């Protein structure tokens, strides 16, 4: 603001507007920036620019029946003679107005030499009496205001003239733009021929503007939505900047005191005024969005003040825009892009300045002071005006690729999907296989879950054999406590591990121990019950082959997250310390536990059932259901669906159809993303939901033609009913193909897959000898 007032001296104000009586076609401002003239088809008024608003000063449309001479296409206020105005009338007249005339009618001169609408009038910047006009009839005329007629006529011989502009630095030069896309440079002394001509745009060039400082720079705007800046000072006219806008450019005006800035407005569609930095031609530097209809005239209020812009519009308003109120599209533009890829890779694009900014990511809590470094007094710095910075920027693109085998990758998903067995073997073997797969892929929780499922739902094994074995096994194990207790606890531990958060599991274990104590039953007998014991034995018998390995049923260490101490919990039971040899506790620090009512409830229900002599598989269903939901909610729909399929009827009725369908759909979608078509198909086949199964039955019809007579095969048999020959004969071995038939989409010949593959190793041509270069993809 300080700079602004220094430059302009008198100019001050705010964003303001006033209603006009009629749409404006053009506006112009007087030299001292205190008044603005608005001209249109039905309006011709002068407004004073006050501090807080526009004040109507003069209505130049006088007379009972205003002539067409008042219908203005353009207006210009003389920059040297403050009482002198010129208008271009739509009837072809060029009119000058003298505000100093004492009567109401200020009209001074009338030139009616053009035959069609005059698009533009322009006073010479330094010569008081020289006026130039450009018309739809293709002529430009130069008037001397002291004479009644034009001094000279210039014929562009191109087409209609849209704009004429005297050069600011070269006394004799003016530029004219044409509807056929040409721009011509003329010397005012030589009306016979232009000095230079070049094609600036495809389509009409609606406007041009000389740079106020740079002698050779001319900006042009056209219907092709572009603004181009040309350097005229060289021998060849050179395009040095090009700005692509979003609508045809009606006006272009260089911004005062800002070498690279220019303002544009459009004549269609777009009502906004844009200020561009030509060095960064993609994003407008500033936008004024006030107008509700097409902006027809823009002018910088003062020729040395870059902060005030006046505009008139077809919406019958006149605006003064303040630069500080402009919207800055770049501020809303997103400087970063970020996307997770399918395989866990992360693509990241960011503004380079953001990435190179010396920021320490470690100190999270620190706040940066807005005033900068406190060591230096703030007034020593002359801070550059941040709002005027609009340097060229670029983004850096990088891809963070997940390393093979790292936990962010998705290899585990693909491996699991491919290796899991979902059918074709007895239930126990499937579970066992899948447990091994999960274990191999370092997914202990899933592995344990499979093992548990096997134990719970398997048929009981031979009791005598296994009980014997049980003892042997327990001798090998570091289980000082009762075997049965540990197994039992363990079963539920593992099970709940999957079902609930690992956290609560830990507590559950303790609760079991606690229950045992509180009930005063040290003996393991109460915790043993027929079926469950057999289940445990079953576990051992299955593990028999690989005894050397670490005990399968030991939950890996990590599965027990260490529980923090909640200080404010009133009754933290600490039964664990009493049994330091208990396997659950080994490797963990002493922990206290707390139980929410919900957890203890579930445990109580379990422990009550422990006493029942028989534990049918159905007993587990609610828990398994809960576990499947848990997996699904954790984003591991693979586990949910795999278990669902393997368990089949054992669990299916427990879960409502809609949820099952949802899981299936989600898993199939994931499989298809990873292009695991075979697995996806298997899942669809094994699913029991109607909606899923029918996925395999859509788009299964193939319409084929007979390979002999090229007619459509109508019936379902092997024989074409027209030529009575077998349709699907292998082109290599000439036998009928039953099963996979592969054919070239170009010539439609084909045969057995392996035959064709073999053939194509040797030859590129069709095996049928039709000469086609076959493509089998």
């Amino acid at each position, binding site marked *: 603001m300080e700079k602004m007032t220094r430059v302009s001296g008198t100019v001050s104000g705010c964003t303001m507007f006033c209603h006009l009586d009629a749409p404006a076609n053009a506006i112009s401002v007087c030299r001292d920036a205190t008044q603005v003239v608005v001209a249109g088809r039905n309006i011709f008024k002068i407004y004073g620019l006050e501090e807080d608003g526009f004040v109507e000063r003069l209505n130049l449309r006088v007379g009972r029946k205003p002539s067409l001479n008042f219908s203005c296409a353009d207006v210009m206020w003389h920059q040297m003679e403050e009482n002198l105005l010129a208008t271009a009338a739509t009837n072809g007249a060029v009119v000058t107005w003298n505000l100093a005339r004492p009567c109401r009618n200020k009209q001074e001169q009338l030139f009616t030499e053009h035959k069609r609408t005059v698009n533009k009038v322009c006073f010479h910047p330094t010569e008081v009496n020289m006026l130039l006009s450009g018309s739809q009839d293709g002529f430009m005329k130069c008037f001397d205001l002291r004479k009644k007629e034009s001094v000279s006529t210039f014929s562009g011989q191109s087409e209609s003239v849209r704009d004429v502009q005297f050069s600011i630095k070269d006394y004799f030069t003016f530029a004219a733009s044409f509807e056929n896309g040409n721009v011509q440079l003329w010397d005012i002394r030589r009306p016979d021929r232009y000095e230079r001509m070049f094609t600036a745009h495809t389509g009409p060039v609606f406007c041009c503007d000389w740079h106020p400082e740079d002698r050779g720079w001319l900006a042009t705007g056209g219907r092709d939505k572009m603004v181009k800046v040309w350097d005229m000072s060289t021998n060849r006219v050179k395009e040095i900047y090009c700005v692509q806008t979003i609508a045809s450019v009606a006006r272009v005006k260089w911004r005062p005191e800002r070498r690279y800035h220019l303002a544009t407005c459009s004549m269609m569609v777009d009502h906004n005024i844009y200020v561009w930095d030509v060095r960064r031609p993609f994003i407008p530097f500033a936008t004024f969005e006030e107008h509700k209809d097409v902006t027809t005239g823009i002018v910088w209020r003062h020729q040395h003040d870059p902060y005030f812009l006046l505009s008139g519009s077809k919406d019958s308003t006149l605006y003064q825009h303040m630069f500080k109120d402009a919207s800055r599209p770049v501020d809303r533009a997103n*400087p970063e892009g*970020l*996307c997770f890829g*399918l395989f866990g890779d992360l693509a990241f694009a960011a503004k380079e300045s953001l990435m190179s900014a010396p920021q320490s*990511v470690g100190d999270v809590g620190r706040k940066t002071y807005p005033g900068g470094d406190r060591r230096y007094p703030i007034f020593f710095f002359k801070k550059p005006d941040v709002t005027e910075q609009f340097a060229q920027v*670029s983004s850096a693109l990088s891809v963070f690729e997940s390393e093979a085998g*790292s936990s962010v990758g998705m290899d585990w998903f693909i491996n699991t999907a491919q290796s899991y067995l979902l059918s074709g073997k007895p239930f126990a073997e499937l579970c066992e296989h899948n447990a091994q797969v999960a274990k191999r892929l370092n997914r202990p929780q899933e592995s344990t879950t499979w093992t548990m499922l096997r134990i719970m739902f398997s048929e009981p094994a031979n009791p005598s054999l296994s009980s014997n074995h049980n003892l042997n096994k327990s001798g090998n194990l570091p289980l000082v406590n009762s075997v049965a207790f540990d197994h039992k606890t363990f079963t539920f531990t593992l099970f709940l591990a999957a079902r609930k958060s690992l956290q609560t599991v830990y507590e559950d274990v303790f609760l079991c121990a606690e229950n045992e104590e509180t009930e005063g039953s040290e003996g393991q007998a109460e915790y043993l019950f027929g079926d469950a014991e057999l289940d445990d034995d079953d576990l051992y018998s299955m593990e028999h082959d690989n005894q050397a390995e670490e005990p399968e049923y030991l939950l890996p260490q990590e599965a027990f997250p260490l529980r923090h101490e909640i200080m404010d919990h009133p009754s933290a039971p600490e039964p664990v310390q009493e049994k330091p040899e208990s396997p659950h506790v080994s490797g963990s620090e002493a922990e206290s536990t707390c139980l929410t009512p919900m957890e203890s409830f579930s445990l109580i229900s379990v422990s009550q059932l422990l006493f029942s002599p028989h534990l049918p598989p159905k007993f587990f269903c609610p828990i398994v259901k809960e576990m499947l939901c848990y997996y699904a909610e954790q984003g591991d729909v693979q586990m949910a669906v795999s278990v669902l399929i393997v368990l089949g009827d054992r669990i299916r009725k427990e879960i409502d159809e*809609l949820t099952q369908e*949802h899981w299936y759909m989600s898993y199939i979608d994931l499989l298809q993303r990873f292009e695991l078509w075979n697995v996806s198909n298997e899942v669809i086949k094994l699913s029991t939901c109607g909606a899923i199964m029918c996925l395999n039955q859509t788009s299964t019809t193939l319409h084929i033609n007979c390979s002999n007579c090229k007619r459509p095969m109508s019936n379902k048999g092997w024989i074409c009913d027209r030529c009575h020959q077998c349709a699907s004969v292998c082109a290599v071995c000439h036998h009928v193909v039953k099963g996979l038939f592969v054919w070239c989409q170009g010539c439609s010949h084909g045969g057995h897959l392996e035959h064709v593959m073999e053939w194509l190793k040797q030859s590129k041509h069709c095996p049928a000898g039709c000469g086609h270069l076959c493509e089998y993809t």
Partner: protein
Amino acid sequence: MFVAKSIAADHKDLIHDVSYDFHGRRMATCSSDQSVKVWDKGDDGEWHCTASWKTHSGSVWRVTWAHPEFGQVLASCSFDRTAAVWEEIVGESNDKQRGQSHWIKRTTLVDSRTSVTDVKFAPKHMGLMLTTCSADGVVRIYEAPDVMNLSQWSLQHEISCKLSCSCISWNPSSSRAHPPMIAVGSDDSNVTYSGKVQIYEYNENTRKYAKAETLMTVTDPVHDIAFAPNLGRSFHVLAIATKDVRIFKLLPMRRESANSSGPTKFEVQVMAQFDSHNSQVWRVSWNITSTLLASSGDDGCVRLWKANYMDNWKCTGILRGDGSPVNGSSGHAAALSAVGIPGAAQMVVGAASAGRYFFPHLDSPRAGSRLAHLLPPPSLIEQIYEPDPSHAPQLRQRHAANSIIQPAEHD
């Protein structure tokens, strides 16, 4: 654990969006230089630009891929008030030899009167549908009635959001229990209008989208919004990039009667809120299993967030965008202590630090931010961790990783 690869994007202005395709093998970038580039991952693992063309006459804000069932189709949206649909054409033999592919414009959607700020394809099970949102606060939903004809789109719905829209996200759930749902974020900077995230739901009876929920606690401009992949969940998880990162959980409430016509009521929970970017957050993105959230902010860093077994979200890694050759070789490895699979989650949880973050579902977002302050930076967590001899191999690997990343974090 990531390897950072820098790609010479050669865009002439800011890149506003990157987007992976369905299968993760292709990538599209869009920029203010009015162009879109398509990158294909070669057999050598490198990304090659296979197409680059001028798409709009203004900044291109977003680019997005359609489901490959509909072909190789991209949609872009721009400051020039249009959205466009592009399709790759195969069979241009001379282009193919140069390793270039050809994209042609199938349609231009010109209904908006202001900048189109986001464009998204609807989930595949809804058919071929495209959604745009614009700065004047209108969300438009288009449908291609014939999926083979990408040049015909009919405007199906216009939702007026009142606030200028900056981003949209479809709920990806394909469950029949979840009606189509779309979340809209607004970047209106006036903080007095609260509720910068609105959620609209399709009503089967009225065949219209109706507002189901407004997240009133979000008062600052929202720059990005992302539903997590649903994967069989009964609830929805929504990540929001505003002045901080927020994660909301939307639990559909059970309807009293099956045929009630009103929109679904949701129980909205704030699962997490982090302001550790210390600045505006511009982007959020979920991984495919929705176990990992990435966010990027004005600090130039990507932060990775993960929930542990207690639904307790915290930072598991910070990536600096230092694939640039400024800081040394382009193959500079930024190794991280991030975890992705549920089964391995326990590895990161240090003995001393795990419990400190215990919090149940938060009632108010303020509580979330307070707790977020308590989180030590991840580097700290690493150091607290007491190595357990039984897991020595893994730990060695992890400590090696730390020694790489720590200089990057502290310099």
